[in-house]
């Protein structure tokens, strides 16, 4: 894992002091809420439905156990004993006091964490593959590159008042576990003639106008990357729309201007920027990479696992994924208990996961965009012990990637932008499909729920998506079908008229039963949908 040096620490410490003073000035009335808002947002502090909400950055979703413990400590000391893991691999606290935030930031800084640029019209926390460094299919670990970008984007003076927020993801596997092409910039690390470089996609996103990012450059060399991104952002900062917040994301610029024109503008700007000596030497990427060297795996670790406990065996098959090292596995902790709140974990659960990471996973955890937690490096011989401890804490639901492994935004229970509640729909669906045998028979099914058109619950990318809307003051839910955030990326299509809360649960069940009826072989729901189309399901639901 990356460790701060004195420069990194000084920057984060300075931020704490800066924000302490900004809070003081706001409390004293020296600045208005209108002036304070962008300042607090750049520190991840929102004013939500019930209170302030603090979003803490988890760069590329990677945490040490000490950092995880701090998240539990903050939940216990400053919040109401729980945290919420988000679809951007971050964590949110729902009941924060403005007066406490400088102290919270100081606590975070003590474990090399921060809330910098987790909101605001700036470059947000860089997301990545939750299996980075452990996946068998990666060409390299994407996290050193993501860390390079984290540093470059932190307090970038030119790009802190962009037309709109800006999200970047970095992956390094053909399998896309980070919804890379649904980001403002998606980067896939690839090898060309034995040399690593970045394949750049620009202009993806969800929200009210979902778009899949087109490729803008097939290969940017490591020592050109920051200059190239600088050019990408400068073109956006200068020409992105500022007349309408709903049309201000870079995807709209590229859609209206054309990917070819945008690419040409970036090339021109890059030719200029490259003369300015903005790129760190390759030695900097090497320095960062050294922190991400593979842990000392036991070369004698055995691949044998005792499957005699049937509940354990189910969990093993569903939540445990292959690791690149012999005798090791990737453990997924689905933070999706039946009837629970997706992504919510109590302080005690957070502590437990931290302890497990320390004892069994080389001190590392990951947060996934599906609001789950990963122990990336677990010895196969330890899997049973890990499972028993998770099970005792209510964290061993064997539903990874199944219909009850639901992504849901906080929705109208917490969010001031929401039009409808998301969490109760997720709870009802997970109860309806509580039977694990039935879920496993249905197979991989990504169900994603957003409580408004901003799509924080990724409904556009759900095999089945649910969008909550406000229909004359009443919550109403539309279903979309056929979306995917993976390497077979697609945007779901609206099936038909919406439903109330119970109606949408029934409708989802009818869609799924139709799939079981018409599927061929081992087709996933998504494959069947793509083969048979919308009408079959529409007919099943609306008759």
């Amino acid at each position, binding site marked *: 894992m990356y460790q701060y040096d004195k420069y990194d620490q000084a920057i984060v410490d300075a931020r704490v002091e800066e924000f302490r003073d900004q809070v003081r000035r*706001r*409390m004293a*009335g020296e600045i208005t*809420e209108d002036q304070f808002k962008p300042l607090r947002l750049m520190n991840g502090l929102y*004013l939500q*439905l*019930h*209170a*302030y909400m603090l979003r803490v950055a988890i760069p590329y979703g990677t945490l040490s156990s000490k950092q995880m413990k701090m998240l539990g400590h903050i939940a216990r000391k400053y919040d*109401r004993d729980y945290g919420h893991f988000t679809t951007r691999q971050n964590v949110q606290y*729902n*009941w*924060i*006091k*403005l*007066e406490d935030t400088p102290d919270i930031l100081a606590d975070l800084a003590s474990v090399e964490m921060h809330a910098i640029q987790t909101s605001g019209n700036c470059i947000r926390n860089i997301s990545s593959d939750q299996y980075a460094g452990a996946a068998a299919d990666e060409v390299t670990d994407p996290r050193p590159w993501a860390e390079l970008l984290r540093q470059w984007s932190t307090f970038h003076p030119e790009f802190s008042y962009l037309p709109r927020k800006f999200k970047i993801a970095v992956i390094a596997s053909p399998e896309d576990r980070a919804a890379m092409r649904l980001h403002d910039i998606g980067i896939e690390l690839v090898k060309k003639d034995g040399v690593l470089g970045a394949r750049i996609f620009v202009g993806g996103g969800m929200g009210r106008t979902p778009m899949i990012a087109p490729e803008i450059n097939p290969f940017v060399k490591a020592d050109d990357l920051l200059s190239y991104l600088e050019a990408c952002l400068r073109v956006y900062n200068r020409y992105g729309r500022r007349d309408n917040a709903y049309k201000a994301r870079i995807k709209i610029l590229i859609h209206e201007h054309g990917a070819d024109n945008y690419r040409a503008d970036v090339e021109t700007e890059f030719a200029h920027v490259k003369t300015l000596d903005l790129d760190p030497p390759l030695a900097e990427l090497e320095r960062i990479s050294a922190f991400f060297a593979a842990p000392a795996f036991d070369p004698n670790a055995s691949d044998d696992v005792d499957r005699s406990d049937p509940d354990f065996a189910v969990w093993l098959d569903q939540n445990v994924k292959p690791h690149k090292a012999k005798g090791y596995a990737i453990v997924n902790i689905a933070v999706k208990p039946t009837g629970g*709140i997706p992504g919510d974990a109590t302080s005690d659960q957070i502590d437990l996961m931290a302890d497990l990471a320390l004892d069994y996973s080389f001190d590392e955890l990951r947060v996934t965009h599906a609001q789950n937690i990963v122990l990336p490096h677990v010895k196969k011989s330890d899997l049973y012990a890990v499972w028993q401890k998770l099970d005792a804490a209510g964290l061993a639901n064997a539903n990874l990637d199944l219909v009850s492994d639901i992504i849901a935004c906080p929705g*109208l*229970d*917490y969010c*001031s932008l*929401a039009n409808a*509640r998301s*969490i*109760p729909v997720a*709870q009802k669906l997970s109860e309806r499909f509580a039977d694990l045998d039935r879920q496993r028979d249905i197979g991989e099914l990504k169900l994603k729920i957003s409580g408004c058109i901003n799509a924080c619950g990724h409904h556009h990318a759900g095999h089945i998506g649910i969008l909550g809307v406000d229909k004359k*003051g*009443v*919550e109403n839910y539309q279903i979309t079908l056929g979306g995917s955030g993976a390497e077979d990326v697609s945007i779901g299509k609206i099936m038909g008229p919406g439903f109330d809360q119970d109606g949408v649960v029934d409708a989802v069940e009818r869609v799924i039963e139709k799939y079981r009826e018409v599927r061929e072989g081992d087709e996933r729901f998504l494959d069947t949908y793509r083969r048979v189309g919308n009408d079959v399901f529409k007919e099943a639901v609306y008759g």
Partner: protein
Amino acid sequence: MKLLTGNDLGSGDVVWWTGSGWSRDVKEAVDAGDGADAILKQEEAARRVNASYAVDAGSDGLPVHIKDRIRAAGPSVRKDLGVNPDIQLEKA
């Protein structure tokens, strides 16, 4: 009937205008009548409330819109954390 609501600047708590101050309990809220704008302006300036606004209330004395009913009640999925968790959210 108009209720005034907003958040406490320091704590962020949802608060309601009681006629003489701000309460976390919507049941202490009073009709602000025609004075809404003037009260909000004065209270914002004194930083006794933040991000304030007026909402329509129904015959039950509670906000009409579900968003503000949830603000008054607390999250419907965490009734243990609400101020008035038993407020009916949907229109009768």
